[in-house]
């Protein structure tokens, strides 16, 4: 299950950032280090995760997501 969540989050990132390669991906890479992580990309990351895991983030949670790891932790907190 743990691996499945991680894989799903990675896939969400690859989906939201079509030019992101496997080697560029890092769990701790931050929003400011992504070339095209703007507010719309943020919205899409949240939407994709909500649809994938059938959960709903609050606005505060959504705003605080600044890395893949943040999204992973946020998803985990909803599934626990």
């Amino acid at each position, binding site marked *: 299950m743990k691996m499945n969540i991680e894989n799903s989050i990675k896939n969400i990132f690859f989906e939201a950032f079509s030019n992101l390669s496997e080697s560029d991906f890092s769990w701790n890479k931050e929003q400011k280090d992504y070339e095209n992580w703007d*507010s*719309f990309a943020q919205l899409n990351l949240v939407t994709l995760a909500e649809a*994938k895991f059938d959960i709903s983030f609050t606005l505060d949670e959504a705003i605080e997501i600044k890395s893949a790891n943040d999204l992973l932790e946020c998803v985990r907190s909803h599934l626990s």
Partner: protein
Amino acid sequence: MNIIDSIKNSVKNYPEKTALIFGNDSLTFKDLWKSIESSSSFITSLNGNKIISLMAENSSSFVIFYLGIINSGKTVHLIPPEISEINFRAQISSSNSSSIICSSTVFDKISNFESINIPIFQFNDIPKNIDSKLIDSEVNNFAYLIYTSGTTSAPKGVAVTHSMVNFTTKNIVHILKYTNSDIDVLPLPLYHSFGLGCLHTSLYVGSTIILLKNTNDLQRILNIIKKYNATTFAALPATLSKFLKFNENDLIDYFSSIRLIITNSTKIPIATISNFKKILLNGNLATYYGLTEASRSTFMIFDKNLTNDESVGRPAPNVQIKIINDSDQESETGEIWIKGDNVIETYWEKIFNDKNLVDGWLRTGDLGYVDKNGYLYLLGRSDDVINIGGEKVLPDEIEKIVKQIDGVEDVAAFGIDHEIFGKVIKLHVIKSLDSNLDKSTILHYCIKHLEKYKIPSKIDFVKNLPQTDYGKVKRFMLK
């Protein structure tokens, strides 16, 4: 000259010709005129003002009383039979109608409404063969009054004059080449302007109308077309799309006598157009763009040799169209404005005037553009534009993409409030029968095919979408 004069001409020129077939009723022009005169005599005997409400499903009686009311110099207020009680009351009050004439089905429905203070008459209770000498025609500019169903707002009263009807009917006849040898199959509701315009056209040229109650039984429609060697057929785009489930060779055979299928400007799937181009060996599919306030403003005959099938055609003769942007300047893309003798001068209740009517131009609220050859294309409703953090998105664009996904039967895109972006996009999706479609699949597809600000933020699977009778989604009802 009004529609009554056209009937009188037909009665004079070919009294024994069949004018109207409905179920087992078959009326010659002479029979039809006799019934119209009788109903006019009854209308004349009623006290009250010039507005008479007519509320019924399609039938011979509908046609007779519609024309009978006009022949007595009064205005027909057309009420859809399925109307809610609250809207019914609003229309009766706004129209200032003095009587209601209705079918027995409608009578059963509205007689349960409390405090209706005007007389209600069922078709069956009205005496037939009343002496026509009792008719006392008054001078009246207005032929009929319809409250628009409205995709984005509350209904508005639109009173259509005889001269507007005359202008529009002549354009239809001229462009679509109707003649008195046509046999016209008409299953559209007559209480809307599409069906009513078809009725006027048939009466204007003196063709034969085969009136059907509705389009519920597609096989029956095909059988009737075949049986009567019908030459024209009027249908909504959704009906035409449903026909495509039949065997193509069978359709070619059934439609072999048809020279014209007329549909309207609700979005017609391109596949439906291309299929009907193949099916109609001896005819053409055509559409028009118009509103109740500006009927039949453009016409499009889908040509087998042309590829501009997404257009709704070029302006009708003596109708002008211009495209106006947010700065009130003429522009390539923007709101469609219409001017011509088919456009109303005022709404029934004048509160909407300032907004929608400017120096004889009707602001339609529809967005579009005109290509270099003068063909008009529709992009959506200006009221539907979703402003997402400053980015403007048309729902139609999103819907077009989502409809490409396997398992999507229908979809509506609309804006919902968002604390940061102002609005974001939400989808209501109807899944095909037995589809396992999930939200992630829809999002994946959208991400591949749309800009990132156009990706829906919320998706709900629903059983149906609120629609007008013309199949347009009532977005203001979605949330």
